[in-house]
């Protein structure tokens, strides 16, 4: 029995890893199955395949029709979660702990034995095209799609929504082939958090997923060589959307926690730099933030603000100014607040099964192991203001990729 906050790990011979964290005081269990087969491994010319495939899986599996399958999930009261993302596809949910084995059996059908009925393909394709179109009515989301595209010239620049050409080129047969190629156990991760008995859980997982075989195609590198400096998307909106992206350090880097605390000083709570300088002191926007976009083996820092056109230039200038100014000095109190906030949120999130399952699956995917709460705590506590300043000297905020969306372009730094 591991200590509170600790977890079990089991790697099956077929390459599937099970990570599980017991939270015995809780009545629920949450699980996530991750397949490392997201949009970056969409076949060239068929961008959007991962999304259509994931959607089609729910249209019948293991001898059940789409409706029978959906009813079976609902009969367990299962709260569904999962989607096709850039690097991975996830399937999962949360429910009362006693029903976990039954839910896992249903998801084994969904992932290993989907019917992928050809007659259902046109509806799924139509939905995918509409969801891509919906981006036009969601300026902030559209900004981030373009920010990624401007930053990563290769497959990492894609959106899981796909491209219109890619979605139109897809066929029912292509999706079936794609399924056979991609839904494989090697590198897959099943994370469980909540109330369970480990022996029973590992037996269930062996029984349900033990016979599954094969490896999915390898993932491309997150290469940003040749990225754009500035891209403007003309669109008539009430607010100008501003996005900035520049290189960060990946999760396995020794300075990861230093970087994380630097970002928390910038954009942790409401007393952090960006909120204070851009919103509280100048009233330039409602939403302003910075965060880390973490991928396997790579990371980028993203900053965002939305503001009305007459103040857009000032907002961009102030935003960049704050990103750069961080290297000039940090108060001990600023770091202390960032640290307190992070440590408190660690404890508070440990009460929520779904948040824990996400932590497990993310760590296992990014690092190949799960960090304990104590390890994260030690990492955070070791960070000093000097270490952050030294880190910022080595990795200054510069060489930005900037994207704006609105009526007219802005002046960006050379």
């Amino acid at each position, binding site marked *: 029995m591991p200590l509170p906050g600790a977890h079990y790990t089991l790697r099956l011979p077929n390459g599937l890893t099970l990570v599980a964290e017991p939270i015995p005081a809780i009545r629920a269990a949450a699980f996530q199955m991750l397949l490392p087969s997201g949009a970056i491994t969409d076949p060239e010319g068929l961008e959007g395949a991962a999304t259509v495939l994931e959607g089609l899986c729910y249209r019948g599996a293991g001898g059940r029709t789409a409706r029978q399958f959906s009813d079976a999930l609902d009969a367990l009261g299962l709260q569904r979660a999962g989607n096709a993302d850039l690097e991975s596809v996830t399937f999962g949910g949360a429910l*009362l702990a006693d029903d976990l084995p039954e839910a896992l059996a249903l998801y084994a059908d969904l992932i290993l034995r989907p019917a992928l009925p050809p007659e259902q393909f046109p509806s799924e394709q139509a939905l995918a095209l509409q969801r891509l179109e919906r981006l036009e009515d969601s300026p902030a989301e559209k900004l981030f799609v373009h920010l990624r595209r401007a930053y990563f010239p290769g497959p990492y620049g894609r959106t899981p929504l796909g491209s219109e050409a890619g979605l139109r080129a897809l066929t029912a047969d292509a999706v079936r082939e794609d399924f056979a190629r991609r839904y494989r156990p090697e590198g897959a991760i099943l994370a469980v958090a909540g109330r369970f008995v480990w022996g029973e859980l590992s037996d269930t997982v062996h029984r349900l997923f033990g016979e599954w075989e094969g490896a999915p195609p390898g993932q491309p590198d997150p290469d940003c060589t040749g990225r754009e400096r500035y891209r403007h998307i003309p669109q008539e909106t*009430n607010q100008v959307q501003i996005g900035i992206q520049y290189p960060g350090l990946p999760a396995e880097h020794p300075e990861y926690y230093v970087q994380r605390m630097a970002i928390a000083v910038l954009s942790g709570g409401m*007393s952090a730099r960006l909120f204070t300088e851009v919103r509280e002191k100048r009233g330039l926007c409602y939403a302003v933030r910075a965060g880390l976009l973490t991928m396997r083996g790579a990371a980028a820092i993203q900053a965002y603000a939305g503001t009305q056109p007459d103040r857009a230039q000032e907002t961009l200038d102030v935003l960049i100014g704050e990103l750069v100014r961080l290297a000039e000095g940090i108060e001990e109190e600023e770091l202390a607040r960032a640290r307190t906030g992070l440590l408190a949120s660690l404890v508070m999130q440990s009460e929520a099964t779904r948040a824990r399952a996400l932590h497990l699956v993310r760590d296992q995917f990014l690092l190949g192991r799960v960090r304990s709460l104590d390890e994260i705590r030690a990492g955070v506590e070791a960070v000093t203001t000097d270490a952050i300043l030294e880190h910022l000297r080595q990795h200054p905020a510069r060489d930005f990729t900037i994207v704006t969306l609105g009526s007219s372009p802005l002046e960006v730094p050379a």
Partner: protein
Amino acid sequence: MKTHHIVLDNGLTLIGEENPAALSAAAGYFVRTGARDEAPEVSGVSHFLEHMLFKGTARRSADDVNREFDEIGADYNAFTGDEYTVYYGAVLPEEQGRLLDLLTDMMRPSLRDEDFVMEKKVILEEIALYKDRPRFCVIDEARATYYYQHPLGQSVLGSTESISALEADRMRAYWERRYAPNNLVLAFAGCVDWDAAVEQVTRATREWRPADCPREHPDFVAQPRVRVVPDEKIHRAHLALVSPGVSAQSDEVYVADLIGDMVGGGDGSRLYWSLVEPGLADSVALTHDPEDRFGAFFGYASCDPERTAEVLRRARGVFEKATAEGFTEEEVGRARRKAACARVLHQETPLGRLYHVGFDWQYRQEFRTVDEVIDRYLSVTADDCRRFLERRPFDALTVVALGPLETVE
């Protein structure tokens, strides 16, 4: 799990559900004021005032408020609705005292002119932000159309015009009337030291004076209305559907909740099979929103503009079929289980639990434990749903469509 309740001499109500096993403590002021309590010329003042409460007090500057929340590692925020304004925070148990000191002090804000002017800019940005979100706009429009001249139709954000014209003195007067202690409930959940909380808050609020905080309750009868809001800049058709539900005080809230879920609560609902599965609409949603003395079902769908009429015709067909035939026991059984599960998960953390503890008290002056709520969901039958639908709530369906459209039917 222990529950507590006390009304202080000044009229302030404190309630708490104490769970010593929890890892955090959550507290929140539930103020009985919102968009429905505003005169038309100060539309948006409740929400603007919510922002202003973070701008400091007699003994705290705006910076102090944000800084202190962060110093105690709080997960904190505030929100404004039609009927309530809520300020909340969750902290590790040892910071309960500082959290309470801060939240309680915030209820007596300075409302300084220079902060008012600065924050007005932020509010205008927030309004602009939501104008770029058609899904939000169409629901807001539908609320106004459905509730017509009833105060429940009023906008939480207000308009660019109402906020631009708002003067600080009007806000101060509104605050005077609405933030009297007898109009506030301070709720607790999680690992709370109740006795210490009562002692501290009693001391901190001893100068507070009760006042008359009336709320208008005009009659309302739902009428089916159809409204099209043409906007060529929008790409999709965004549809909102509203029909009568039951109030937060009604014993039928759980029945209404399940009916909303079965008809249109996302994947696996009847609207899903009718519209999303065949690829006619890219999303559907339907939820029941119970409020003070009234309640309504709010639905949403988005589709290709040229398919609007077909989507609407099918949606109406789904409502008519449910009204005529009701639901099977199996269907109700699944919905019961989903609702029970969702409640368990949402209330795992003290902060999730606080929301329910606070609103249960504000609307019904009672505690309902998670187990009690689950039992209530699990006891809903197909017959209960049939009886509910005999009143034919979906006959009064209000429809609002936003997008590159001229007509919908």
